[in-house]
């Protein structure tokens, strides 16, 4: 049987069950949530290597019913979402004991996972929007979960900006429907390819702009990033890890890729494609530059990590945007493939090291009670495991050679230079060094140096908290060393799914 609907049905069922059972059984969330996310994670890993598949909801054939599609790109995201989800739930069990209302927390967490899985497997524009809303609304509530003044304000800001993004997306979807008369992605893609061919319809251009703005807001690309530096530090640490690790990628980057490559057919090189590709590169560069500059001046550890997320998302977007531009202008397909591969690989790595950084920041906050870098120092002696994992992640994200982050940035840069955008590549290289600079600052201020007063009392966190950290640290190193395996089985199918638009249409519509 095709397991696609289970990716949505299992977490949704868990989310409905947890508060129901929680009326009598206080530990329902802590027991059921890790169990179900573990099942989902195993399912996602087993998905690797399977051929792309389509599931017809309710038995209605695609343009009329809703189709679920799993191809290489969906599989990549499913693995990231469900495995990181499992580790974050595991981390939450101890970490969240300081909060009340835990059944609600785990239920919202499962809803967020369900929403992201729904976005990733959906083959229908409006269905994508609905599940995007499930995930976003759950994350608004989770950001404000601590109900302190700062949390509430960050959540409120996130809610307002997120709602603006949703309205834009709905505008875009409505326009696409008005012009093409269909909501199914493959059907719309075929319609755009056959009916409008070379020149873009103004309505579709407008809709594309709305999609880029809406998904860009969800992905926190720079002109639309205002919510992220508040929301990420204010949320509980496992939620920051989810937000930074997978939410901005599955709701933002994934959706941009899917809409522009598979629906708009950017690779076919219509009149609008170059504009969109240029916009992607511009947003990417802005994110890299502004994220880097703002990160270096931060003294709040989690806020620094949040700005660093913006910068790294910029690198992901740069790879994808360069690939799109090369394809749209009719350049060499191999260079475009390399750029997209680099972008996806960096995204996959960023899932690992940014979740790890946020989780370990949570561990540090749990042990010392602060996230002000000036009050920390010498943590290496008091919390060796957390310090070690933080070190691994920082080296990896800064792009130090043997670690995974180095390889993905290298691939992106090589592709950018090959495509002839040397100036852009130079900017990216300079800001790769800026990344290194602020992670050196992290190491100097937090891990090494004199032991500060607060760190004096700190103890290593319990095993349930450091096991996820160690697993993610292994992933950080492993992705770099195991690249031949991961590249062939996970990343290349994802890249092919993006580059062969015709194959996607063929797959869904048969």
């Amino acid at each position, binding site marked *: 049987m095709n397991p696609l609907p289970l990716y949505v049905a299992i977490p949704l069922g868990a989310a409905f069950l947890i508060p129901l059972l929680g009326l009598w059984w206080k530990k329902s969330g802590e027991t059921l949530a890790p169990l179900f996310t573990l099942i989902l994670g195993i399912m996602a890993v087993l998905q690797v290597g399977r051929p792309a598949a389509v599931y017809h909801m309710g038995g209605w054939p695609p343009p*009329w019913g809703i189709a679920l599609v799993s191809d290489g790109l969906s599989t990549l995201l499913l693995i990231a979402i469900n495995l990181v989800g499992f580790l974050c739930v595991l981390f939450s069990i101890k970490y969240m004991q300081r909060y009340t209302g835990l059944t609600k927390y785990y239920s919202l967490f499962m809803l967020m996972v369900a929403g992201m899985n*729904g976005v990733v497997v959906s083959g229908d524009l409006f269905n994508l929007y609905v599940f995007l809303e499930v995930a976003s609304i759950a994350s608004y509530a989770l950001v404000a979960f601590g109900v302190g003044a700062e949390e509430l304000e960050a959540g409120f800001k996130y809610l307002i900006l997120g709602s603006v993004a949703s309205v834009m997306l709905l505008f875009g979807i409505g326009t696409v429907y008005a*012009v093409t008369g*269909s909501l199914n992605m493959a059907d719309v893609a075929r319609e755009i390819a056959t009916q409008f061919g070379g020149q873009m319809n103004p*309505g579709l251009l407008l809709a594309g702009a709305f999609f880029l703005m809406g998904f860009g807001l969800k992905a926190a690309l720079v002109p639309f990033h205002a919510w992220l530096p508040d929301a990420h530090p204010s949320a509980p640490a496992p939620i920051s890890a989810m937000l930074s690790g997978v939410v901005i990628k599955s709701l933002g980057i994934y959706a941009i890729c899917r809409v522009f490559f598979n629906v708009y057919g950017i690779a076919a090189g219509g009149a609008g494609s170059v504009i969109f590709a240029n916009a992607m590169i511009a947003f990417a560069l802005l994110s890299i530059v502004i994220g880097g500059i703002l990160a270096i001046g931060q003294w709040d550890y989690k806020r620094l990590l949040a700005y660093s997320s913006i910068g790294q998302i910029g690198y992901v977007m740069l790879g994808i945007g360069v690939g799109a531009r090369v394809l749209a202008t009719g350049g060499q397909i191999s260079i475009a493939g390399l750029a997209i591969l680099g972008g996806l690989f960096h995204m996959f790595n960023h899932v690992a090291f940014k979740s790890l950084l946020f989780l370990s920041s949570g561990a540090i906050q749990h042990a010392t009670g602060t996230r002000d870098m000036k009050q920390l120092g010498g943590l290496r002696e008091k919390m060796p495991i957390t310090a070690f994992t933080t070190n691994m992640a920082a080296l990896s994200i800064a792009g130090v050679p043997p670690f995974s982050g180095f390889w993905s940035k290298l691939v992106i840069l090589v592709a950018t230079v090959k495509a002839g955008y040397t100036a852009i590549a130079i900017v990216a290289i300079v800001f790769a060094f800026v990344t290194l600079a602020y992670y050196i600052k992290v190491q100097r201020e937090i891990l090494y140096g004199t032991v500060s007063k607060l760190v004096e009392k700190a103890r290593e966190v319990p095993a349930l908290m450091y096991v996820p950290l160690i697993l993610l640290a292994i992933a950080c190193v492993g992705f770099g060393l195991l690249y031949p395996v991961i590249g062939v089985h996970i990343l290349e199918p994802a890249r092919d799914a993006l580059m062969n638009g015709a194959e996607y249409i063929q797959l869904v519509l048969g």
Partner: protein
Amino acid sequence: MENITPQLYALLVFMIVGSVVAIETRNLLSAVISVAAVGFALSVAFLFLGAPDIAITQLVVEVLVLIILIRGTILLDNTAVESHRDTLAVVTSLIFFGLLLGFGAMIFGGRGFPEFGEPVMRVSKVYVHTGLPATYCANIVTAVILDFRAYDTMGEASVLFTSILGAMALLRRDGKRKEEEVVAA
């Protein structure tokens, strides 16, 4: 096919006036009331446009929204907010008005869009023609939301569930436990 455009324009003007009042007024309660007026006008507009399902839903939701908003605002902060103008809000609203005007011009000007009143209906023709024999459901809108696209409706139900759960979670008594309870637990 009678012409319903004049009524539509009248309702549209009413809605624009109502929303401008809602933005401009400094009294929270009158803002809420003008928003509700816009909502009711919208419901009437849906009825004109042949969408009784939407009209009913919009109407009852508007009633509920009105109750919740009045309940939420009336005793909290009934005084006029005397603060300076929020420039950001003005700029955003101007941008949105501009976008809406552009949007409306494109729809009515027909540049790249199908004519008003002549939708493409490529996919939905099938819903209209086979809806009754395939689902035995006389209300085609219901047939679409609960049979052809029931999965979407499940998503919609989860959205409502999520937001209600989120609201309940935010309204709980204390956010964090006291330090001694954590040690005990």
